[in-house]
């Protein structure tokens, strides 16, 4: 299990008008549970918080570390350890076909070309995407793309998986499929979501509002708190 530590980590960005907008207030957190959800309204800072975890964003103040590795000083090592799944799977996929994209993920781990192709084919089969291996990624459905995006990130064998609203673009059937996939993973998961059922699958949940964590506790309590904010 990874140990994620945010120490007074904040993030701010300059607006087009030249003023500075604080997106995440200074936050101190320790994240070490197996399943953690981050819930909150749009623009509450969920994605920013998650992006800090694998160094996609660097904190404006404070620090973020994963198992003692600082995201600023050891960015490469942190990214190899923390996989990130985007909301839109098309942002995740960089090669023309599912097979090639999986092979890209496997390049560091599997050196032999033949073995890499076999492993990519095996992963496609595992995710039920085998018949689509040679198709264009644009020919896949939203659900197939999200599964592929998940497979491409897991192929590098991260110890911590961060998912930014992974079910937002999915229909009910694919959301359930994704949930069952996530439930079967051994990796530690930290995910942001608007799907409160998905949040309830987690053991701990953070509620965010206006760039800060306003509740931190058991998932059921956090969901009740979040619902209460808008009742």
């Amino acid at each position, binding site marked *: 299990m990874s140990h994620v530590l945010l120490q007074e980590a904040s993030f701010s960005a300059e607006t087009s008008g030249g003023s500075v907008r604080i997106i995440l207030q200074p936050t101190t957190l320790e994240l070490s549970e197996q399943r953690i959800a981050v819930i909150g309204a749009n623009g509450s800072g969920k994605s920013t918080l998650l992006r800090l975890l*694998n*160094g*996609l964003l660097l904190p404006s103040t404070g620090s973020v570390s994963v198992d003692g590795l600082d995201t600023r000083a050891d*960015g*490469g*090592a942190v*990214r*190899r*350890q*923390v*996989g*990130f*799944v*985007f909301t839109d799977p098309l*942002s*995740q*996929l*960089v*090669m*023309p*076909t599912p097979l*090639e994209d999986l*092979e*890209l*993920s496997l*390049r*560091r781990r599997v050196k032999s*070309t033949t073995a*890499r*192709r076999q492993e990519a084919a095996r992963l496609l089969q595992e995710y039920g995407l085998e018949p689509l291996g*040679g198709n*264009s*990624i*644009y020919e896949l459905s939203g659900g197939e793309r999200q599964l592929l995006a998940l497979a*491409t*990130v897991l*192929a*590098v064998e*991260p110890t911590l998986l961060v998912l930014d609203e992974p079910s937002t673009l999915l229909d009910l059937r694919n959301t359930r499929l994704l949930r069952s996939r996530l439930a079967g993973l051994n990796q530690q998961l930290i995910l942001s979501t608007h799907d409160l059922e998905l949040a309830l699958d987690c053991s701990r949940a953070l509620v965010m509002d206006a760039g800060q964590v306003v509740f931190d506790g058991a998932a059921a309590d956090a969901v009740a708190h979040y619902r209460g904010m808008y009742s």
Partner: protein
Amino acid sequence: MRGHAYLVGAYCPGRSVVHRAPLWLKGLLLLAVAVACFAFPQVYLTSAVLAAVVVLHFAARLPAGRLWQPVRVMLIFLVLIAGYQYLQSGPGTAWQVVAAIMATVLASNIVTASTPIATLLDSLERAVEPLRRFGADPERFSLTVSLMLRSIPFVIGAFDDVRDAARARGLERNVRARTLPVLIGTVAYARATGEALAARGLGDPLD
């Protein structure tokens, strides 16, 4: 974005003799095409090379549409170059220059269309390996080249999308409206690609 609709630079699976040829041979032939066309600028030689490249395209069983696509993308530049050369040196030189560009671009298109990206990556990595002692990172080099190839369809698609958007607002003659969004979109694409690699821990040098 309909960059996906373009196959320029994309691999076309197949089992033709061209597909099965080793990458070094394809690279050598590509080099030979470029040298023949540009080092010996003769109308008959360049025409023969262009004809040979077209024959090779069909020998690789690539769709006829892929022959036209790269030419269509470059059409405006080819017309401008041909016009300039026609005025400066006559019709023979105009044709030779245009045919040389087409032959080289179509030949490189055959190489990328008949070679899986993984093979391309592996071969590039091996080719750059001796430079590792001078500080080169073969993995990053090959990844950069493959991503460059991958971005070609995106940029072409972005041009078409922006042209349609400009046309829908009656701005088809507005150069700014037709180029600025492509520039912004391309930068955003590059950034998104970087993030996609970072999301998988790829592209960073190994410690």
